[in-house]
């Protein structure tokens, strides 16, 4: 084999002999000490690709066969090019997808029941905490439940703004970013900076601080028709059935996607200013849960963003009226 010649050959010829060796072997460290100890067929392979050589081991007469041999061999030649195997401790979205079983009903003419089994995170799975903080920018630290990749992040408005002073114009970039987890949490933030990237980062951090829950019907659509007006922007939203999709203004589309609204129909009347559309939408989605911003003098003035009523869910209305919203609750 060529490797034995490698140890003895001078430095100049080494590169030439390496070219003839297959790619797998080239990754192996060619330190001369290892080659001398293991001998002719020295193959240093990753531990994952080796198997204990229990069967067919050459044993000397009078000795027991060794449980682990110093001569490992490949599992499969194709797997030798795999650097690492998938982490089995983590739940894979494709391989560990929830399974659905249909259970036949005992009663006649009744539809079968459906059981969906969701894979639970394994008890010995490690919590991966992202401790790497970006230097220079004061970024908001998220809890482990939020990974940077799992949040929807849409910079919807990025524009150049100018501050006029006596000595000239001072330009800067403004950004409005909508952030959401796609499952009922959404918020928007605004930021300004010298460049677009800085402005977007500031807006992203601001949005993370201002995230709030959205009460949804069946986790997919709003509860009732909503009509909201903010300045010259008027939005009318209507809940829609399953599978309808989002038939809405492009700005509203991203806001709904971030919030986790899947079926909605909306129309924007009057001004279609992006900032106003997003703010009006947030007044609707957040207003139901937030307390009315009347301005009590202690916390300061009430803000315009908390002025309107907002959307409220069925159980909130039932609780405040003290009766169920079913037909006949008023007269039966």
């Amino acid at each position, binding site marked *: 084999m060529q490797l034995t010649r490698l140890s003895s050959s001078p430095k100049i010829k080494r590169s030439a002999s390496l070219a003839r060796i297959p790619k797998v072997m080239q990754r192996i460290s060619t330190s001369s000490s290892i080659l001398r100890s293991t001998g002719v067929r020295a193959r240093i392979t990753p531990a994952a690709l080796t198997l204990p050589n229990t069967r067919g081991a050459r044993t000397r007469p009078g000795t027991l066969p060794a449980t682990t041999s110093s001569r490992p061999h490949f599992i499969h030649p194709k797997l030798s090019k795999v650097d690492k195997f998938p982490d089995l401790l983590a739940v894979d979205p494709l391989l560990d997808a929830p399974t659905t079983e249909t259970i036949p009903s005992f009663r006649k003419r009744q539809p079968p029941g459906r059981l969906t089994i969701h894979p639970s995170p394994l008890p010995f799975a490690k919590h991966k905490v992202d401790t790497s903080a970006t230097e220079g920018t004061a970024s908001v630290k998220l809890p482990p439940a939020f990974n940077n990749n799992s949040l929807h992040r849409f910079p919807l408005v990025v524009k150049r703004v100018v501050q006029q002073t006596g000595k000239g114009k001072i330009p800067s970039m403004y950004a409005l970013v909508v952030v959401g987890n796609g499952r009922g949490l959404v918020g928007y933030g605004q930021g300004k900076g010298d460049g677009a990237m800085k402005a977007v980062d500031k807006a992203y951090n601001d949005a993370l601080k201002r995230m709030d829950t959205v009460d949804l019907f069946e986790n997919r659509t709003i*509860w*009732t*028709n909503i009509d909201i007006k903010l300045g010259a922007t008027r939005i009318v939203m209507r809940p829609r059935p399953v599978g309808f999709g989002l038939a809405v203004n492009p700005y509203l589309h991203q806001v709904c996607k971030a919030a986790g609204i899947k079926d909605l129909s909306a129309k924007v009347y009057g001004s279609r200013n992006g900032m106003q559309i997003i703010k009006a939408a947030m007044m609707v989605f957040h207003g139901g849960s937030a*307390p*009315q911003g009347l301005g009590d003098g202690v916390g300061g003035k009430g803000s315009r963003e908390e002025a309107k*009523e907002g959307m*409220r869910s*069925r159980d909130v*209305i039932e*609780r*405040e*009226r*003290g*009766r169920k*919203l079913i*037909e*006949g*609750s*008023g*007269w039966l």
Partner: protein
Amino acid sequence: MPLPHDLCSHVQNGFRARLRRIAVPHTTQNLAILSILLREGFLSTITRGTSVAPSPADWHTATEAQRRIWADLKYRDDRPVLSSMELVSKPSKKIFMEPGEIQAICSGRRAKFVAPLGMGEIAVIRTRQKEHEWVEAREALRLQLGGEVVCRVR
């Protein structure tokens, strides 16, 4: 007979001003509409009384001009339970609906330029039947009655 608009504005303004209770003139119309609001959960109590205070005993001895109906208003989580009470049928444009049209507005469809009832919204209907003169929209649907859609409450 005063217009239903008086009652609508009185109730709505009372809620916006965060009043504990309001006193409206004692008429069959006001009594009927307030009792529908009570049944649907917008008010906590309605009592007969006088212009001075709610007191059923004093109501008996008082004159017609002094009689009032007192309604206790409801609030929860620093919010009023009733947010708006608007007229539907106005003197300038009266709106009368048949049972089919009432079904439409209860089912999320428009009828006679009247927007459908949203979640938690009720409509007060005045019918020609003496036994069920003032009813809620779903009640009218059940009894298969039509009539004038007086106001909508949210």
